[in-house]
């Protein structure tokens, strides 16, 4: 599904990712945890194709193709979805218009017929129901005036409708109260399947009480320094990131 090999990325000339390796299989849920500044958000933005990042080395293969060669919209067409940490407000168009344009663009990329407004509505209803998310937000302008929780819920709704093969969730839990967190994690859990993988990026262990990952990786200073099963989260919570950092330094030293 996804294979990241020795990825090096600079931001404004400064190395942020320093040889990151990660392999994910189909249907797997991986979690990347790490302290502030470790490169978590850089990784998600690089995967989605933001051009402000300079890739200085390494490779990313997604479903057998070179991901880094592809434009952002092609990556979406291939089945990559990024749930943004800070979803962008787009006043002037409704969520319906936005998602119709997006789904038809993705369908066109995949060689599928475009859907008309009535067919779209049917698809939206089915998928929203499956992800247990209310459709009412689609009548409003995209993210405009949404609370933090509404924005994240809207990202999940977009994910449900676009049906990606790999969803990267960038700090989808930050700033959410427990109710909003439950809605978001219920949506993710409802969408888990043997064909769909999730890369959950978070700062907080709390999210993993709701979304139970298959693998946890600890990102420190641009590298994955420790990987393990879900029990790693508990260890991290108990001992803190400092423990991993220390541990890493000891190994490196």
């Amino acid at each position, binding site marked *: 599904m996804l294979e990241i090999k020795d990825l090096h990325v600079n931001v404004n000339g400064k190395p942020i990712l320093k040889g990151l390796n990660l392999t994910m299989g189909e249907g797997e849920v991986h979690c990347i945890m790490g302290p502030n500044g470790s490169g978590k958000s850089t990784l998600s933005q690089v995967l*989605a*194709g*933001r*051009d402000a990042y300079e890739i200085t080395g390494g490779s990313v293969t997604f479903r057998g193709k070179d991901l880094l060669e592809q*434009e*952002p*919209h092609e*990556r*979406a*067409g291939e089945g990559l*979805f*990024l749930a*943004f940490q800070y*979803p*962008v*407000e*787009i*006043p*002037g*168009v*409704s969520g*319906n*218009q*936005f998602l*119709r*344009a*997006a*789904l*038809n*663009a*993705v369908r*066109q*990329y995949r060689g599928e017929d*475009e859907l008309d*407004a009535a067919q779209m509505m049917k698809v939206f209803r089915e998928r929203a129901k499956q992800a247990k998310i209310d459709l009412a937000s689609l009548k409003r*302008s995209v993210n405009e005036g949404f609370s933090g929780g509404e924005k994240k819920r809207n990202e999940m709704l*977009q994910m449900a409708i*676009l049906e990606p093969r790999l969803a990267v969730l960038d700090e989808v839990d930050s700033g959410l109260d427990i109710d909003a967190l439950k809605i978001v994690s219920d949506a993710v859990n409802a969408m888990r399947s043997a064909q769909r993988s999730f890369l959950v990026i978070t700062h907080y262990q709390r999210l993993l009480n709701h979304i139970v990952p298959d693998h946890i990786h600890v990102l420190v200073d641009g590298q994955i320094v420790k990987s393990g099963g879900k029990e790693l989260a508990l260890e991290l919570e108990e001992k803190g990131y400092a423990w991993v950092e220390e541990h890493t330094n000891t190994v490196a030293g």
Partner: protein
Amino acid sequence: MSTLTVHNKLHEDFSQNSGAGPAALRPLREQAFARFAATGFPTTRDEAWRFTSTRALTQVDWQRADQQAQSQLDDLKATVAHHALKDVAATTLVFVNGFLREDLSQRRLPAGVRLLSLADAAQEDWFSEYYAVADAETASALPALNTALADSATVLVLDAEARLENPLEIIHLSCGISPHRATFPRTMVVAKPMAEATVLETFIGSGGEAYWQNSVSQLHLADGARVTHVLAELATEQAFHTHATFAHLSRDSKLVSENMLIGGALARNDIHVNLNGPGAEAHINGLFLGHARQHLDNHVVVRHNEPHGCSFQNFRGILDDKAHGVFTGRIFVAQDAQKTDSAQSNRNLLLSDEARIDTKPQLEIYADDVKCAHGATTGQLNQDALFYLQSRGMAPDAARNFLIYAFAHELIEKLAIRELREHLEAVLVERFGQAGALAPEA
């Protein structure tokens, strides 16, 4: 005076035709033509025309367009059908080269509204006071030229307390093969107390030749009247269009003025709103979309003459290629107009390095207890939003068009009448929809 020597045909036209038409009009027309003859076309030395040169306009010896349009009836019908409001049982009046065409119009008038000819209107007691007022209100003599040469007019009188559900639609079409054809469309809406109506005026042209429409719309709102006036300027890109709207608002009346400038090599839209009664309210919104070498100028003057009035201006410009946009918004608050609440916003999107916008607020306040806010911003497309859309599958061009549409659509989505909103959305989609999977909101 050099500008006038060129305009022989308009002079000839006036001297031949000034005797025609209702007698009551004659002195008004003569005064108006004398005004134009003395003043000529505005120049960039006039403060109100600082950013807009009429040079190209003055170099043509304009001639009144033929009444007999050469176009085939089927072509005209198709053009009108393309631009007319869809699916709404509205009255549609179609003027071709300044003349009402019964065969293209839907004259079924709803109860509560009367359509008068210029001759009939001239018999009304309010006529001479209202008709000439436009000429005096602006330093430019272009409205006066309209008064002098307009042979016909759409005069809509809304009865007291009439409430019209559906918009009244007026389409002004310029067609023919003469590259020097000029028309002088004139509209008057006289809303009696508490009347409510929406009037849509669409200006279109056909053919690849240059033409000129010099139009005037007058809106007279009696106490408590509510009028929405929509101007859709969809001229061809060889055309010149100079328009002026003059609105007079009595006590507690409300005007909504929506203005879309989309076509024209040169389009100038003057909007003069006078709040002449206490508690009057004006919303003046505009969207101007320029590309290639289009020049689109919005000139708004709001005069608060009485207390407790409010006015809100919201204009948005989108300029690509070498297009040049202008927004001037003048707010005048008289000494007696205490408790005035007034705001003005102009936001612009520049899509190319060579596109240009001149935006200028002008506040002139003589009362001491007023709110008067204004702001203008000019910027490019938001990179974060572009990336967001691309990450959802939209190709770069489609994402760009989607954002442009969104920026423009923000003004339209607030329109109360759904059919009108959809009509204007369709205009936007036609302009920006091709590269994206954009569809109007269902």
